């Protein structure tokens, strides 16, 4: 599913150059749930950005669902994400000018699906928001917004689902509910799940925990 070799990422130019990823080797099998654990600044989100095709690595190779991401340009990566990769972010990032239903339909429409709105409605119903289809993000609570984001990420039935600190903006109860939903949907769809977190308890819910420190993998362990 994912094969990264000697992955590096640097931002800025000398003398302000920052080496964020300093040689990452990582392989992930289909259907796995992986927690990317580490403190702030360890490179978790950057690794996710590279693996999800949001950022091009500075060096090394990265193959995701049999595509060499290192060779694709911005547009190529955008097309590669369609239907393959779903992303849930801490700050939700819903399109504020579109309703919940339209938000979920957008990736399907971009992928050229003809039944985008039917599938979007089904996905929203699956995350418990069948009654909030026409609501705009500003009319939804934080938890509801994150549910819409999860529905949007899963609607195209991606093989890979990335969740970057998905409960970071939510209270504990809502956060737990969201994680329950995420894992339930992971189980339902069989998608590979990548959860980026600094919460060790949350990481323990995944089958595999990869710990990062200063742009390097500190440990990589599978739960028994």
């Amino acid at each position, binding site marked *: 599913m994912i094969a990264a070799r000697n992955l590096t990422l640097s931002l800025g130019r000398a003398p302000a150059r920052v080496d964020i990823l300093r040689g990452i080797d990582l392989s992930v099998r289909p259907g796995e749930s992986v927690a990317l654990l580490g403190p702030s600044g360890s490179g978790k989100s950057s690794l996710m950005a590279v693996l999800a095709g949001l950022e091009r690595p500075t060096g090394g190779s990265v193959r995701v669902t049999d595509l060499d991401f290192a060779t694709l340009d*911005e547009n190529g990566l955008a097309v590669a994400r*369609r239907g393959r990769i779903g992303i849930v972010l801490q700050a939700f990032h819903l399109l504020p000018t*579109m309703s919940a239903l339209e938000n979920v339909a957008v990736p399907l429409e971009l992928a050229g699906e003809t039944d985008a709105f039917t599938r979007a409605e089904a996905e929203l119903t699956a995350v418990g928001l069948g009654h909030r289809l026409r609501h*705009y993000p500003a009319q939804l609570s934080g938890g509801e917004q994150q549910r819409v984001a999860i529905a*949007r990420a899963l609607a195209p039935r991606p093989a890979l689902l990335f969740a*970057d600190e998905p409960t970071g903006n939510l209270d504990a109860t809502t956060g737990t509910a969201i994680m329950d939903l995420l894992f339930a949907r992971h189980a339902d769809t069989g998608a590979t799940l990548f959860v980026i977190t600094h919460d060790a308890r949350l990481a323990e819910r995944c089958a595999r925990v990869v710990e990062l420190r200063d742009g390097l993998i500190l440990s990589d362990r599978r739960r028994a």
Partner: protein
Amino acid sequence: MRLAWRLALRDLRAGGRGLWLLALCLFLGTAALAGIGSLSSSILGALASQSHVMLGGDLEMRVSQRLATVEETAAFAGAGRLSETVRMRAMAQPVGTGAPVLVTLKAVDSAWPLVGSFDLARGASAPRPHGLQAAIAPALADRMGLHIGNTLRIGSARLTVIGLIGNEPDKLGEGFNLGPTVLIDSAGLEATGLVQPGSLYEARYRLLLPPGADPGTVGATLLRRFPSAGWSVHTPDGAAGTLRQGIAQLGQFLLLVGLAALAIAGVGVGSGVSAYLTGKTRIIATLKVLGARSGTIATIFLVQLGLVAGGGIVAGLALGAGVPWLVVAAVGDLLPVPLQLGVYPEPLLVAAGLGLLVALLFALPALARARSIPAATLLRDTLAPQTRPSPAVLAGIASLLAALVALAVLTASDRLIALYFTGATAVLLVLLWLVGLALRATLRRLPTPKRPLFRLALANLHRPGAATDRLVVALGLGFSLFVALAIIDTSLSAEMHGAAPAKAPRFFAIDLQPEDEASFRAAVTRAAPGATIEAVPSLRGAIVALKGRRVADMKSLPPEAWILKGDRTITWSATLPPRNDVTAGRWWPAHYHGPPLVSLEDKAAQGLGLRVGDMITVSVLGVEVPARIAALRKVDWGGLGLNFALVFSPGYIEEAPHGLLASVYAPPGRDGAIARAVADALPSVSMIRTGDLIADIASVLGQVGIAIRAAAGVTIAAGIVVLIGAVTASGQARRADIAILKLLGASRAQLLLGQAIEYALLATLLAGVALLVGGLGGWTVVTRLFALPWAPDGEVVAATLLVSIAGTLGIGLLASLPALATRPARMLRDG
């Protein structure tokens, strides 16, 4: 593509409010262009539709200082139905006390008018004048206190007023009138005794041609038959030519000023689109995360911008198309001709095209930046990279700029002037932008003020993202225009009301017979002892050949060949006239009596490619007079004295029947006495008061000034919209500053003062730029173009600047009020 449309509409539905600045700027710019174009077209359309009426027929032949011969009359009458009118200046004197008044005397035959209808106002005692009767213009009745049945004296005739002229169909086509009209018939003209050998009058012969006859062909045939007669032939296409040309030129000039306003609106478009797309950064990044290509992003926002821009442009076109109706409702009575109301597609299409090109040109850089926003922006909170525009974007900008200039220039009536103006405007805008950048850089280097409000105000003018440079462009051009106009206006006014009248004669006298010169001098000096009189022979003549080539055979005449158009007043002199200097050749000896020699004004000669030694032929009263150019002269036209472009050597030309032209230099305050004395002694002599001439010129300049101010006002309006847009665009940052300052204990009054300091600083900087740029422009026009002394009124210029400063300060503060109402708790909670 359809998906991009769908997403664009979806986003626009809920989030398009940020594009109001784009719509408003384009609305203003296109409304100005469409309005000016529509108004100009409706005036020109009215003139074109009335061209037969204004000409008074299908064809007109004009000749000066003589009537048509029997042969000529027979030839004219053979071509169609004929009407004869004679037009001249004369003095109308009240019977009893009162000053004589200069009038335009128009004598018509019974066939007049061939086209249109002549009407007298209600209450007339007869339908049209016969014999010793006259119909007079209402202005003359007011000025002389005349009523129907009263009498007035013109020349030797006592004429009874039968009514006030209501409609004189060919009035507009007759050109500039120096006085109100008095209409009489041919018998009345004879009774005045004003038509004498050498008197200045013009006879016009109008023809109604048989159906199918081409006026141009008939005119050319008649000209060929009488090649030396000095006729000028006019067809309806050229009726009211000077008026049409003047309106077309003013319309074009205003259109170009409108284009400058549109360019300023473009600055607003750029700011508005940039602010809008910056606000959409996260949406763009999110769409990219979800799999949207850069092309899809560009299409989405291009669709949005296109729809909003289209709305602004269409609304602007609607207002512009309605301008002729608005003008008729507001000042319809002041227009030279009733407008031909209608929708004129051409100016609307040009305005729409220019509006669209400006929108694309100024929106393109922001659109290109938006296209390149990376998906990772969501994670790292980075801004769009501030890279230089790609070669493709630069090529797009260059193509749009070229298309814009091409459209502006190719649709102009005078393409060269349009090209110069467009180039000058572009240079000025770039110059203003550079001045703005330099100001920002200078402000950044100033020592930091100790007081926090001053510090904040100063920082707001130079911080990254500050709109100071754009505002210098947007408001600087309008303010500079107003300062330049104030300088030009007051310098011209000083010349017209001070310097020029001081050295100008008080009167010009025309139709003075040589044998009456002594009586004239005696009458003037009796009324104004010490008065100086210059009297020179005068007659009319037209140049018919240059270096052996007939003028009639020249296909087109260059603009500088004004001397060839129609006939000119000419004179002869043994000595070099005052206020003249020989620049080439030599003046003839004082007692020269050889073959005719002639001296031309140097610029006129240069325009015709004539040099000393070349031959020209002048037709005088139907007789062709060949003359060799002996000298070229530089003439000081500024003194308003008697000056001539063509001066002959004495001798042969003296044989022609001629009159005298005189100028009278006298102390102010004796005008009435001089006019009365001359009218009593020599009723056939017309006295033109220089003050009236200057007042007429001032009035025309005043009207043109109002039109230019209106157009400049549009540039200011566009600038104000840009200012409001800039304040609104920086609203988020301002609200954050204000929330924090309130949190730290700043009162509302202190915050208001902080904003006031910022806008006062900005306004003062703009005033400085306006003084510099407008002053330079005004100085160039006054001293270089008009060649007048530099005499602006400092108070008027200062008042203009103060109004500009107060306006900027007031509008800036008003636009900031919403930010001042920010509640710190809400702002900090919302983030």
